[in-house]
């Protein structure tokens, strides 16, 4: 990312030329989803319902939580049919 010191360094318009997934936006999370893979059916509902881009699918088809984006909203845990996701308090 480019760094700016003063208002004069900034472009006139708030335009960015890098994709938004380069911004890590989840430092303030208090709960994190932990997936118990033994209960997971690979249905991808967690991936589908995640309002951010915090669930990726690995080569085996299992969901992986991307903690750089996860705000800990718990929607994935709520929607998971086999209840394979636990929301665990951050340390």
């Amino acid at each position, binding site marked *: 990312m480019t760094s*700016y010191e*003063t*208002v004069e360094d*900034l*472009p*006139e*318009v*708030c*335009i*960015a*030329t*890098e*994709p*938004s997934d380069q*911004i890590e*936006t989840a430092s303030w999370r208090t709960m994190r989803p932990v997936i118990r893979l033994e209960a997971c059916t690979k249905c991808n509902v967690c991936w589908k319902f995640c309002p951010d881009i915090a669930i990726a699918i690995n080569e085996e088809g299992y969901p992986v939580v991307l903690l750089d984006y996860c705000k800990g909203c718990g929607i994935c845990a709520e929607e998971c049919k086999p209840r394979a996701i636990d929301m665990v308090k951050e340390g």
Partner: protein
Amino acid sequence: MPVQVISGNYAQAYAAKLARVQVISAYPITPQTTIVEKLADFVASGELQAEYIKVESEHSAMQVCISAAGMGARTYTASSSQGLLLMHELLHWASGIRAPIVMGVANRAIAPPLSIWTDHSDTIAQRDTGWIQYYAESNQEVLDTALMAFRLAEHEDVRLPAMIAEDAFYLSHTVEPVDVPSQEEADAFLPPRKARDIVRPGEATRLGSYIGPDLYMEFRYKVARAMERVPATMAAVEHEYERITGRNHGGPLPLYRADDADAVLVTMGTATTTARSVVDALRARGEKVGLAKLRVFRPLPVHELRELARTVDRIGVLDRSYTGGLVGAAYSEVAGAMYHARERPMLQNFIAGLGGRDITPPMVEQMYRRLIGAGGSEVEWIGLKERKEVA
């Protein structure tokens, strides 16, 4: 140059057509609807080559313009009253990403109680959205101002959206002779938009997305600086328009017989015409009264208002809106501007003409009487139906 007898709404549509707008979003609301209807005619007949996008709400209407402007298009839409209120959130987005959208607004009262008639509360409620705001007095002024608004909004030093407000029915549905510039004149005045800082297909570009506390404030400051640059750019644009069409509407605060006036009334929109006739009648009787038309409300013409304060001792401000505060919006703005004037005049606020009530010559005369007599309270509702105390 052909003179056509057209409504204020058609004047808006002709201006957009002459500007060769590329994207129009349309959602109907009385009394604006015939603006976008006329534009639909222009597009259907092939007179105007534009994307005409019918949307499901005013919120979407503004989003269409923002997205199209964010990709470099010249855009136009129109709204009114509750529809404009629904747009409110998006109006901030438009100015924040510096989208030079031009919008026509037929000023209509806000419900409840439901009213379709003239009242400035709808656009006044958008004063803090970062849009340039014009208030027109005639259909000619609507057309000229809308055309000029494109050039001002798109100017490299400005890059802010602009709305042209016209009083419902008094202008929107009343026909007047309007000198419509030729397409050649319009093209000479308004070249195609030179867009910068836009998103392009195939490039990872974001407009107005997340920013931290480390940089947000600086982008607000840039909007503020752009607003500060509007007056000089507006003057240059108006000069250029006059060179091509011969017409100039007198800057943001045109004065009428105010030079030696003891009392001046500040008006917006069509009430100005009524007030001008009252000024003439009172002047004929030897009373030194004048008029200041607040043609541009955002950015507020602070310099011109302070100049007025230097020469006039008593200034009244007519608000055709009620904004929930103790005083009217235009009044508080004018008073705020004049607080730092070297000589501070006596100020009075008149609230009149809400929800389409006519502002008649006797009402305006009553305002001047209050000013000249220097009596009465700071805020007075004129033309209110109240029980008269019998002595």
